[in-house]
């Protein structure tokens, strides 16, 4: 048996409600963008999951390297002053 040729992979994003951003829900195979969008509709929105769909070729996604997690994401941990809880406001001032 000759190996089956591969079909491009697409990532699917759905906006579930107006006002929310698109969220990744899964991936599928399709030969082109039009078929990918149709397939996304047929596969991922069968139970009223969404109002808007994006399909993106998986190959177009540029991902950060998990090996570089330290360099990429840890320096931020030492900046608590970016968060409101860093600052003291007396209770009697009320919500701020």
């Amino acid at each position: 048996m000759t190996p089956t040729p591969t079909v491009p992979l697409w990532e699917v994003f759905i906006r579930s409600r107006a006002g929310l951003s698109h969220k990744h829900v899964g991936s599928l195979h399709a030969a082109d963008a039009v078929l990918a969008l149709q397939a996304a509709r047929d596969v991922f929105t069968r139970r009223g999951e969404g109002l808007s769909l994006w399909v993106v070729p998986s190959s177009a996604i540029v991902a950060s390297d998990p090996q570089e997690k330290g360099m990429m994401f840890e320096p931020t941990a030492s900046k608590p002053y970016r968060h409101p809880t860093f600052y003291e406001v007396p209770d009697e001032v009320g919500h701020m």
Partner: protein
Amino acid sequence: MAGGPGLRRFFEDENMATNTITVSETPLVLYALRRADDSLILGHRLSEWCGHAPTLEEDMALANIGLDLIGQARSLYGYAAEVEPREDGRSANDEDGYAYFRDAGQYRNLLLCEQPNRDFACTMVRQFFYSAFTDPYWRAMTSSSDPTLAAVAAKSEKESAYHLRHAAEWLIRLGDGTEESHARTQRAVDALWSFTGELFDADDAEDSLVADRLVVHPSAFRDIWSDTVDVGFARAGLRRPDGAWMQRGGRGGRHSEHLGPLLAEMQHLQRSHPGARW
């Protein structure tokens, strides 16, 4: 209630051996059954693909279209049951009565809908021809003076619009794909063409509903259908057949050889357990 009417009539009708129902086919009942039968038979055909489609994605898509059509059939059978004249003390038929206890000669669907799936090209061309009609048809039917039909149309219109889009995209890809896919698709077009004339037919019964503005005459969609088909064929590189001869008969219960086996399979369980509920 599934099978109920079948059992009751088992003792009353001459069709005792098969517990086939009789239907009072007023123009409105006939109309609803014709459209319901189109949807059910085509939906049934599409359901035959489940588990066997060319890709998993397409398996999902064909099941979705099949489910839409079965849903349309159920609404229309329900309406037929509501408007079918009742005889004293006897309840009307129901959706399963119509689906499971009518013989092929009582089915009123288009010959196009009962044509076998054959290959994916045949299935998509059949869908394209059908949906190129139902898309504008249901849109127009949303302004029916009959509120139930208008509501069925409002739901069916959106479904049919997608069915047309889906079938047309595949028609283009199959027609303009490989040599083999082109040949298969042209063959499907040639084989199914003679079943498209019936889409635009209406008889006296339906004419009376047209006069009352309950329904739109199907012939009103001939031009728009023809344009849709021409655009699709042009993009797919397919040739429009010259043949002018059209097969007819489904609307009147004269079917091809393909409907009998389909119904035998669909109905056998109901028919072999008269009166049972499922």
